[in-house]
């Protein structure tokens, strides 16, 4: 059976055949370095992570909304949304909340530490299709993290988009992410509206639920443009995006022009482990970005 065992050897040769190439990529991890890490809040840290090999770094092309699998050898592997601009390629930023095994271990690492990255995986926000139209970017809590890549993309291509609203709700002011960038976003002619559930002494902005701010912005942007000339991206916990999408639908925004990013347990990111399935849709392949029409048709999505 000599002709059969050849398969294994060919695999090592990195042969020309596409399948063999893909097969050898399956468990491939880019070596990357944490070049910087700083706390954004009590529980979230921003990690700047650079793929070490310059060629690999340059070839690492992703689209806003996609995620990577971050691997700490011996600790585990988990999915995280890329939170940096696509222009920076394999020099990415991840904003990570310490919640479990891997994320808490990560919080103890210092800059210079070597980690593994694979990906990018999943679907993305169709920022090209959105050109020429208004955009509403709506985030609740940690939802600002996956939203930051499309925000940065819009900032870098500001002339291609109409009016841009960011509507961002957090539990309390101390949980707000990327506070140091708000000034810059506003200077790029973006309407940034932040609301918190509970104020503290320093807080001067509005207090309440994100839907209140959204209601105001819907009035400002009026029903006509919403129906004909607007895209929305909504990221946050399921209860939040459910209400937000419902409001937007009632305001006339078509369901297929609303995009959400869903989160499920993931162990592979490659459509193999089934842990991420919603109904029988793989969140890692057909998501994490879905249009709202698709979400409505997914059994057990909301």
């Amino acid at each position, binding site marked *: *059976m000599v*002709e*059969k*065992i050849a*398969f*294994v050897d060919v*695999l090592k040769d990195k042969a020309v055949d596409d*399948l063999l190439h*893909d*097969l*050898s*990529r*399956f*468990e*491939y*991890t880019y070596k990357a370095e944490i070049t910087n890490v700083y706390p954004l809040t009590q529980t979230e840290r921003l990690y700047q992570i650079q793929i070490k090999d310059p060629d690999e770094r340059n070839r690492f092309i992703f689209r806003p909304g996609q995620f990577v699998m971050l691997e*700490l*050898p*011996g*600790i*585990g*592997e988990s999915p995280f949304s890329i939170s940096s601009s696509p222009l920076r390629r394999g020099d990415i930023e991840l904003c990570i909340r310490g*919640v*479990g095994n891997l*994320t808490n271990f990560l919080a103890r690492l210092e800059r*210079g*530490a*070597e980690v*593994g990255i694979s990906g990018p995986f999943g679907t993305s926000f169709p920022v090209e299709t959105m050109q020429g139209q208004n955009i509403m970017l709506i985030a609740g809590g940690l939802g600002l993290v996956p939203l930051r890549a499309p925000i940065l993309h819009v900032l870098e291509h500001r002339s291609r988009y109409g009016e841009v609203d960011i509507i961002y709700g957090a539990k309390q002011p101390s949980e707000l992410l990327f506070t140091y960038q708000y000034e810059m976003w506003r200077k790029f002619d973006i309407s940034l509206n932040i609301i918190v559930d509970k104020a503290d002494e320093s807080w001067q902005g509005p207090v309440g639920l994100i839907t209140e701010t959204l209601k105001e912005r819907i009035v400002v942007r009026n029903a006509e443009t919403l129906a004909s000339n607007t895209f929305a991206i909504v990221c946050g916990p399921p209860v939040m995006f459910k209400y937000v999408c419902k409001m937007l639908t009632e305001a006339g925004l078509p369901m297929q022009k609303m995009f959400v990013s869903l*989160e*499920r*347990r993931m*162990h*592979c990111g*490659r*459509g*193999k*482990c*089934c*842990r991420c*399935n*919603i*109904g*029988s*849709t793989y969140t890692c*392949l057909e998501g994490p970005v879905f249009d709202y029409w698709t979400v409505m048709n997914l*059994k*057990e999505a909301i």
Partner: protein
Amino acid sequence: MIFKVFAKDELTRLFEVLSVNRVVGPVQKGLDRKNRPIYSFEVVDNFDDLRLDYPSTLYPAKRYFLPFEETLSSFTLESGSWEKHVDYNVYQPQVMFGMHACDINALNKLDKVLINSVHPTPYYASKRRNMFIIGIECMPQPHCFCRSMGADTVQHGFDMFLTDLGDRYFAEILSSTAYNYLLKIKTMEASETDHQEYRQVVREKSSKFTTHVDTTDLTKILDMEFQADVWKQWGDKCLSCGTCANVCPTCYCYGVQETVDMNLQAATKTKQLYSCNLIDFAEVAGGHNFRPEAHIRLKYRYYHKHRGFVEAFEESLCVGCGRCGESCLANINVPEVIASVRYEE
């Protein structure tokens, strides 16, 4: 397709020719509580240990393709740096001697997700491609409903398929490897009599099915009955033990774990087959569980197999082998579950 026939004792010769490789086949592995023999796919050294007339096995041959536990990679760790080593765990070709059509169909279904997909998995592909598979015709057992699932015959995914014609075997030859091996034993061209006898066996098999599942419009019915009470009733019985996935030839879901060696110089990334009926299957950090209740998980298992997979590949992810029903302590089985969802009870 090429057909040949050969006398029964020639099969022993074929076994010997093939046995320079590792041969896996059905053997009897003891008795169950009711004194019925238990059959299992094991490594076979001696042709006489093979039970080619086995009714069915408790476990599928899955572990030779998708081991329950498998090392995906290992790491050497050295002062803040590491190297990753990947091994697909194929050390020798294997011969599968005597698989039923349903189990070969199960492999063909696994191929669709695991090889012919966006991220083909080398661990499975390398084992699958290094197999020589001999199929063997069988007679339906009371729990078999492969015919309803279109899995009672198999068109591809094997090297040669044998049908017992009494004093000789009728061989369907699919691969050149199989053809070459058959040159080493005494075979004859299949005659018109052989064809007729073969068709007779197939007719007999077809007439012997006692369990049926109606799959007409099933994807739509499953969608309509997503909130149906029957799920709750089955779910209340389910022990969330995961046995059904364990014995299923088409279940492939898994979990990944990494561990560091005691000396802190090496680490291992291990994959373990899992089951969507286990409680933490869809639980995320912080404790939120997307499928907290047994009936929701059980329903998900049926949806994945009989709806989602059908949507993606126009066939179901169930071959109707009936193993899950046979092994379930709560007596939950596909024909009854589907019938109840269709309100046919």
